[in-house]
């Protein structure tokens, strides 16, 4: 690597910000907070973290990153998965939240108190913006989402679970 480490890190983040999440392609792996950091080497390391322990997209994601690095001539950069600290939806970028909302998925809130099941606040409907919504199911089409519906416009929608 001829670049300074700061420049390399910026280059890698720019590169990976173009990679869509395999299951929610409207946001990138960087938006989602899966790409945790780029460590100086040698060799330089891209540190990634899974959203959920059993997320079936994890393997695809690490392969996507490997392929993108290779295609950009960064074959010497390694990709490493780390669990700690555990991924949190708090790491999702504001840009990522906006993209989710525009796509029809209620983004995760950042807040305390969400772990107690009674304290789960109502989601805001991504279609009409109403706060009168109800949970249909705690589990949705992917591990990271729950199924909700709007009591005003009656549309069902996915809600990103806060963890």
């Amino acid at each position: 690597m001829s670049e300074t480490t700061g420049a390399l890190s910026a280059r890698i983040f720019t590169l990976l910000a173009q990679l869509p999440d395999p299951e929610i392609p409207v946001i990138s792996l960087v938006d989602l907070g899966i790409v945790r950091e780029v460590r100086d080497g040698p060799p330089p390391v891209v540190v990634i973290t899974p959203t959920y322990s059993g997320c079936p997209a994890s393997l695809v994601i690490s392969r996507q990153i490997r392929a993108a690095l290779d295609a950009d001539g960064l074959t010497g950069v390694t990709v490493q998965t780390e669990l700690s600290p555990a991924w949190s939806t708090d790491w999702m970028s504001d840009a990522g939240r906006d993209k989710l909302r525009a796509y029809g998925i209620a983004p995760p809130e950042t807040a305390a108190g969400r772990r107690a099941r009674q304290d789960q606040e109502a989601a805001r409907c991504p279609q009409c913006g109403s706060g009168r919504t109800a949970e249909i199911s705690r589990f949705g089409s992917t591990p990271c989402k729950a199924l909700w519906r709007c009591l005003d416009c009656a549309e069902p929608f996915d809600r990103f679970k806060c963890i």
Partner: protein
Amino acid sequence: MQNGLALRLGDDALILSHRLSEWCGHAPTLELDLALTNIGLDLLGQAQFFLNLAGQAEGQGRDADALAYRRTEDAFCNCLLVEQPNGDFARTIARQFLFSTWQELLFQQLQGSPDETLAAIAAKALKEVTYHAGFASDWVVRLGDGTPESHRRMADGLEFLWRFTDELFEGDFASLRPAWDARVDAVLREAGLARPKPVRALTGGRNGRHSEHLGHLLAQMQYLPRAFPDAVW
């Protein structure tokens, strides 16, 4: 000891994950089908982390796949609770409730473990397990406080599985008992369900002595890798 712990936790997660996968396409509603298989998926991921750790500690080159697919039932050390057949939906919920409540308390403790890898897995899994315990608790209340039939089925499920709960608190897990009792009692109270009467406990899973059900489960789970060793996609 550490190896034993990772192996126990990995086997618990793996076997329950497989049981939950059996619901795929069979749950009462589509939402529940998704819920049960999602929980199974989380557990499968946890199993992979724990079993890889157990394999590393063992130092004989076995990874999670080798441990999952190439051991016979007497080498598994999961608790008997997780290998019990699904029964009806209420029994599956009862099993999940009893187990996830225990797992949540255990992982709260383990996230402070001096073993960094174990602590990281526990902290990660805790977020998922908290969700599982909440889901199962909600359904215990919904079924217990529902129709006479749902109440009866929920009570039956709890009564049948109660004999496997003492095993959860064997050895180094004994300290979890008071908190587990309190949590379980609170949910049962909300559900209008009586705590099952004490019964003679069935144990032995941690030492490889299993019910007849585990062998059948493994026969299905291990068929492909045993028939075609080292097959890849």
